[in-house]
């Protein structure tokens, strides 16, 4: 098998892995709310859940009204499952990165390796979330300050000015995410410990800021486009009146969007691996025992 063919295969494999795991975990997250909807009895009629898609929203509002007690508890469970899922998804991500690194490993070996890097991924994720949380607090403080500074300004300025801050915040969050991905790549590619990987990621970022931001920006924008387009297309399909085929089509459209977003993410992860591999390792992070410094 040629090198390029193998690379293409591993790209496809990683995408499929991430897609399948995303769909399965999403099912887990959606399950409590889906069963809460079922419990309301809204779908017990001859027209089943098509009634929820009638244009006056009469039954949709009825679902919310009647289902409120179910939904309150289902939502709590769903949030808990979401938190769990965000951690669980690190395993297929590690596996996907490992596949993208190449090498002739069988599934068992890859699983073992994913298992080995999992704690470091968790540590990196926690660091990134804390950083992003701090950033969000800073942004909201900045927004409050901006609002009171603009107190006398006209209503439109009062609404629009904080949006600039929000955009800036989104950009920094994106940057944090790209550093996180670089660090993950460094963990897998060079078997670095959490802290060393982070330092390496920051070195890469310092060396090639535009390449890093460009790659992750393209991936984030592509997934935003994919999800929005799917949502828009789904409003065009008449699922309420439609047959099973229409529903299947809507399902296909939204799955395609997920796959599209994941493909672009995989493209960025490949790029992150390349950037990590190309950058010289910082002297303080000696490679041999580096995997021990994860705390």
């Amino acid at each position, binding site marked *: 098998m040629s090198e390029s063919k193998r690379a293409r295969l591993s790209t496809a494999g990683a995408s499929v892995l991430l897609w399948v795991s*995303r*769909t399965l*975990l*999403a*099912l887990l997250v*959606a399950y409590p709310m*889906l069963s809460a*909807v*079922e419990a309301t*009895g809204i*779908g*017990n*009629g*001859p*027209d*089943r*859940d098509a009634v*929820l898609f*009638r*244009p*006056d*929203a*009469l*039954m*949709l*509002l*009825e*679902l919310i009204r*009647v289902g409120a007690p179910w939904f309150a508890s289902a939502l709590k469970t769903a949030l808990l499952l979401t938190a769990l*899922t*965000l951690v669980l*998804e690190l395993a297929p*991500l590690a596996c996907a990165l490992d596949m993208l690194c190449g090498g002739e490993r069988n599934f068992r070996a890859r699983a073992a390796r994913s298992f080995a890097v999992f704690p470091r*991924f968790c540590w990196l994720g926690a660091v990134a979330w804390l950083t992003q949380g701090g950033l969000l607090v800073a942004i909201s403080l900045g927004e409050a300050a901006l609002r009171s500074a603009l107190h006398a300004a*006209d*209503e439109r300025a009062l*609404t629009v000015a904080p949006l600039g801050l929000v955009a800036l915040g989104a950009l920094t969050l994106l940057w944090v995410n790209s550093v996180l991905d670089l660090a993950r790549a460094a963990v897998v590619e060079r078997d670095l410990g959490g802290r060393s990987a982070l330092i390496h990621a920051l070195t890469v970022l310092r060396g090639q800021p*535009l*390449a890093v*931001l*460009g790659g992750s*920006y*393209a991936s*984030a*924008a*592509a997934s*935003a*486009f994919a*999800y*929005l*387009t799917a949502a*828009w297309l*789904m*409003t065009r399909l008449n*699922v*309420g009146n439609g047959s099973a085929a229409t*529903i299947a089509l*809507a*399902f296909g459209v939204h799955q395609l969007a*997920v796959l599209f977003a994941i493909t672009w993410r995989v493209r960025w992860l490949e790029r992150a691996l390349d950037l990590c591999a190309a950058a010289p390792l910082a002297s303080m992070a000696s490679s041999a025992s580096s995997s021990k410094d994860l705390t």
Partner: protein
Amino acid sequence: MQRAAIDLLIGGLFSGLSVVVLIALASAPSERPHRARAATAEPVLTPLFPSDAALRNGAPKVASYTIDATLDPIKHRLSGRETVHFVNRSTASLNELWFHLYLNAFKNDKTLFLRSPFGAGRSGDKAHEYGYIDIKKVSLAGAEGIDLWPSRDRHSPNDPADETDLRLPLVAPLAPDQSLDLTIEFEDQLPEVVERMGYAGRFHFLGQWFPKLARLEPNGTFAHFAFNPLSEFYADFGDYDVTIDVPEAFAVGATGKLASETHASGRTRQRYLAENVHDFAWTAWDEFQTRSERIAGVDVRVLYPPHHDTNAEAELASVRLALPHFNALYGPYPYPTLTLVHPPEAAGNVGGMEYPTLITTGGPWYATLGGGRFIEVVTIHELGHQWFYGLLASNEHASPFLDEGLNSYAEAEAMESFYGPGSVFDGWGLSASSSAVNRATSADRGADEPVAQGAADFATFRNLGALVYSRTATVLQTMGRVYGERRMLHAVGSYARKFRFLHPSPNDFSSVMQEELGPEAATVLSSALLARGTVDYLVRDVSSAPAPSDAGVFDGPSGRKQKKPDPPHAAGKYVGRVVIYRHGALQFPVDIELVCEDGSRQYRHWDGRGFTHDVDYAGPSELVGVSVDPEQRILLDDDLTNNWLTTKTVRLPRVFERGLFAAELLLGTLGP
């Protein structure tokens, strides 16, 4: 480097496309089956009322006011002098007058208004700066030297802390049909905007700002009441001649028609005349933008804050649709002007209020974005009040359902005939109608309290909102859906014509409904409005089986015969039985839809009498489901989820599809 540039370009491209798709998505209407009505400016009816030429064109005038008011926008003070021409149109001799000084509701924390639990009232805020009205002098024409005011009662009846409802004894009795002229000097200190009046910066809105007589009932009593946070108002018709004096830079909007305007020493004096009205409100601000347009023969003017041009256009567009519509349904708007005031965000509590020929709207500058029809809803609602409050000047304190309730019905009917099922919201692939929202708001409160009770009797403002506004509208819409929408419109239109320029009571309303809709519907209506009447249709039992064969041993005139059973299903015939129950006191006739295995449907009808109803089914395929009121005419039904039942396993493929997408979107955003 080159690759980074390409990535940034791709990212930029996807971002740009995302914005385009986002805009398309935000304005995407929901799925529309064929039966959705299209938006139209024309009333969809052939005229219900062919000629309105003979309608009453003026009111019996009881209290007419001539006011001269000067505003100091820095101190937020107003000094005024008013003359009240009062005619005793009752059958009794009067020994006293009752004055409403509603500005005193904001005088201190002990007033009935401010001590009432907040959040229970119409506005969510307490007064930040207190407001009050001081009466300097009250004198009778011909006896200007004598100040009558010291002889007034010092506080509202049985409420030493409140000065919003004061009795003034008359020196000599006023016989029926006699009149008197009172001159009153007064000074207002305006509160910071608290409830539909006050100031916010240099923006000023004046409602309930002058000493005003309570309404004189035909029996010679005054319908007077202290300003309650749950209540609105009630007053007699008259003519208003009001001169407003403000700094030159201020634009003014007011009840009535601008008759003259003079400028002197940096100030503007504007004189407004309004005939056959029962209140007068005005606003002044030096930042108002204005737009004017002649619509259906009325000079319409919008005053709005900077950057609210799209709101102003949406408000004018709403009037373009609704004014002719209401003219046709409830009788022509009789005034030459209509003023719309969109208050700035800081004065949001002033928004959404009605005064004769002047209404306030509201909302942020971006209110027209994103699919909501808030601007249209509030404009059309307040415009509807020109009939249900303005022309039909009911006692809003005693029977708020007559103004807010009937007006919510008028608003929903208008919104739905203009915008179809997306009359409240239409975007993001989702739409919601006024009737659905009204139903959802009031569905579980029908048994809480009677709809047709006094404003102050409601336990909370939320209940008042749910029952007076939403439930009245839902009751009338249900009546329309069951007994005919045209009949219902004709009934309400007849009421609006018969009591135009009068003060109709709940009995007046009921009697018109009885005449128009017949005794059965009238009984349902009064039960729903007066007696907490509710209804819930539900299905509990559905069963179906192959029709029993007619096998066995039969003795007949020609001897004994033995008939063998048919092979199973050979006859291809099934029988089934459904039991439907009606909970609650309201009886509506309903349709029943039977759904068969082969997809065919059969329909039955139940007059709604009795508690239960059996439906027997016979047909070529198995009965698999039933639905009571399948067209959902009965919006009052307490629980719509128990109106149907199926014998099949429940599968929710659409919910599954959307739910999974939502979860994938969530993980796509938050996930690693």
